[in-house]
């Protein structure tokens, strides 16, 4: 579809077609042309012009002083000194002094230049002609002729074999670049499906770094746990905790509505993945009276008393629960890994 289909009369008339230099009875809306130039005070009063000159010079001088102030502040103010500035509060003295002096120095240069331009440089408005961007037909004809000549001389149109193989070569070689990206990372494999949890791993309290006993976990309390053996300075800590982080709460067993949740709990103690099933934020805004847990990133809300099912927000499925029990020494332990992948859903999750 092109504009040829639209008849010319539908397009508004060019403004210039109606343009008449002076307004008359025939053209009450005619363009009166550029208004005559009016003088500024500075153009006719030399004293006003001098005042402007002094203002500009003053601004440039203040800028110089501010730069001196910047250097002086840099040298004189200790980098850790804090001061109280009303109404901002306690702040770093050096940052404040450097910023204001630098800002002042720059602003005064700009203000001086603009004031100079506004009051002392000519303010006569000038009109500049525009020329059409598109080339004249003769130019276009010449270019087309040149192009045809070149195309003909290259014999590209005639020798199809050259053309086709050249396109083939050019199309294939970028593949090398794509192949080179392969080693950016390993293939996913089943890594997203497994965490450090396995049968017999103790639940270690994040705060105290001690294994948890059932008696440590009170009803209405919130505790975070990691698998035994994972330490903060381990090389793999960040990757592992990103999947293994656990949120532990204790409910009255009567309050647990989901049968599997009750089975996988121990005396009302339930352990859920701390990683949101939406996009993986650590979810842990636990409301102990409603048993709701909210994600601070996108407000997905899960009901911990009902299998952590989603009751609001953009998450697509419940938080995975970790099956727990107690070992011979009376410590809480995992009874296996999570039975489904933790964290955000992905294509292969199923």
């Amino acid at each position, binding site marked *: 579809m092109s504009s040829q289909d639209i008849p010319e009369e539908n*397009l508004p008339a060019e403004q210039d077609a109606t343009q008449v230099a002076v*307004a008359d009875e025939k053209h*009450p809306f005619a363009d009166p042309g*550029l208004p005559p130039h009016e003088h500024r005070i500075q153009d006719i009063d030399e004293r006003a012009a001098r005042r402007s000159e002094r203002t500009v010079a003053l601004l440039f001088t203040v800028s110089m002083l501010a730069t001196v102030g910047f250097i002086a502040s840099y040298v004189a103010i200790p980098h850790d000194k804090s001061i109280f500035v009303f109404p901002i509060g306690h702040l770093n003295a050096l940052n404040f002094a450097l910023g204001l002096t630098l*800002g002042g120095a720059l602003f005064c240069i700009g203000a001086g230049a603009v004031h100079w331009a506004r009051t002392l440089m000519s303010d006569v408005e000038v009109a500049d002609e*525009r020329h059409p961007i598109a080339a004249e037909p003769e130019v276009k004809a010449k270019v087309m002729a040149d192009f045809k000549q070149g195309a003909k001389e290259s014999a590209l149109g005639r020798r199809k074999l050259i053309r086709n193989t050249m396109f083939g070569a050019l199309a294939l070689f970028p593949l090398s670049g794509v192949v080179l990206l392969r080693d950016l990372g390993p*293939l996913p494999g089943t890594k997203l499906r497994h965490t450090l949890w396995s049968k017999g791993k103790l639940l270690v309290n994040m705060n105290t770094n001690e294994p948890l006993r059932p008696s440590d976990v009170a009803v209405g309390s919130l505790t975070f746990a990691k698998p035994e053996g994972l330490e903060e300075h381990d090389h793999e800590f960040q990757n592992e905790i*990103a999947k293994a982080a656990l949120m532990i709460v204790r409910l009255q067993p009567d309050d647990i509505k989901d049968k599997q949740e009750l089975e996988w709990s121990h005396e009302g103690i339930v352990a859920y993945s701390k*990683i949101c099933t*939406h996009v993986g934020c650590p979810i842990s805004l636990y409301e102990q009276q409603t048993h709701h847990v909210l994600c601070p990133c996108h407000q997905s809300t899960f009901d911990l008393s009902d299998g952590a099912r989603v009751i609001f927000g953009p998450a697509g499925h419940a938080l995975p629960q970790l099956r727990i029990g107690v070992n011979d020494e009376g410590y809480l332990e995992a009874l296996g890994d999570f039975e489904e992948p933790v964290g955000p859903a992905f294509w292969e999750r199923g």
Partner: protein
Amino acid sequence: MSTTETTDSRARGKAPAGERVADWADGRLGIYSLAKANMRKIFPDHWSFMLGEVCLYSFIIIILTGVYLTLFFHPSMNEVEYHGSYVPLQGQLMSEAFSSTLHISFDVRGGLLIRQIHHWAALIFLAGMFVHMMRVFFTGAFRKPREVNWLFGFLLFVLGMFTGFTGYSLPDDLLSGTGVRFTEGAILSMPIVGTYISFFLFGGEFPGTDFVARFYSIHILLLPGIMLGLVVGHLILVFYHKHTQFAGPGKTNKNVVGMPLLPVYMAKAGGFFFLVFGVIAAIAAIAQINPIWAIGPYRPDQVSTGAQPDWYMGFAEGLVRYMPGWEVNFWGHTLVLGVFIPLVLFGVVLMAIAVYPFIESWVTGDKREHHILDRPRNAPTRTAFGVAWVTVYMIGLVGGGNDLWATHFHLSINAVTWFVRISFFAGPVIAFIVTKRICLGLQRRDKDKVLHGRESGIIKRLPHGEFIEVHEPLSQDALYTLTAHEQYQPAEIGPTVDENGVERKVKGSEKLRAKLSKSYFDEDGQIPKPTVEEYKEITSGHGHH
């Protein structure tokens, strides 16, 4: 003494030093031809024409301060124990990226200032681009011959968003890390390729030890390199096309009225650079931004409430927050619509504004050059579309901060989310209708002003007792300015029968265009501007009312 010397040198044909240098350069670079076209280039004066300069200058400021920051920043995720000046993090484990950012903030004199200038300038850069883009949109400055430059600008805005995102992720703090985690989740939601892209981007599982270094090269080299090229192209095109101007006496589609580059715009634009830099430096002295020391180092198992991205990603954040949690499982696969739809919508919303110029030129069928800007009221459908788009964008921003709306206005976060969900659909429709009405109202007022003059505020009593307000006729300048805009006629579908009497099949796209054109330009789409006949009838007949 000296006078004779200069006379002597002149006599020997020796030019002043400056001229000799210029001659040298001209012989090699041809600068005189370049200067001939550009030295007295005319730029029109209007504050809104300087919004682009705000962007250009903040971009330069970002590059200058960014280069300084690279001198101290270590893009490494190696784990270190912190022993710098900030007491509340003493002995904490963190990445080198985080600890070097603390070092810049607390132990490099002026480092904090440069960091804050860099970050404030980035926020202002994006805000400036947004406003600049809206100025260009609402005045129709994107029309031929400037469509390519519109796309350059749009690309700069989008690339700016991602440069900003990769930049604020570099310190590896708890807030930005949460954002990176979100990105990982969003990538995982992509059907078929999601997990692979995620593993390639992070060099394995999240967070791994690679992403800071990779984001670093993207942030300081790849994206700014492309942006610099686009900025240069954008500016060359601005010079080449010459600036647009608003309608007014003496201003036509074939000229540009304003002040010359040398000296006025050299001083004004050059001065404006220093003004922008000065204002941003002062803001960086007064207001704190991204205090990573208070936020803490990233740990994938920690989080803070109020986890938001920088403002320009807020609209995407909003889309994600108010999306319902749809997830489809089939044949052992999962389609994560709850994340993937917002991801697609993010692109769709941005593309909607990017392609608008092409849609409009298709509807109008106008292939002429346009250098006179429209007043937004004189293009009601375009303006209404623009306001509807801004409404969608703003609703996204509100949704992205739904938790803060809830706490600061004592609302339920669920209620805010529902409000935003409904507004996402209703908001743009209402905005479109209301804006169009307002535009038409303003057009009517302009027409009244032209035909009846402006209200003078003087009340006169006529002999028969009636009170009227005296209307003063408009000046010639005003009459011209208010009637200078162009008005299209709705396009008809051409004859369905050709000259040989053979029926032609009308294509669907043709019908669509006729429909769109009608909604743009029929009597509900615009108020016909006063004609000379109407004016003459009123002014000659019975004087002014």
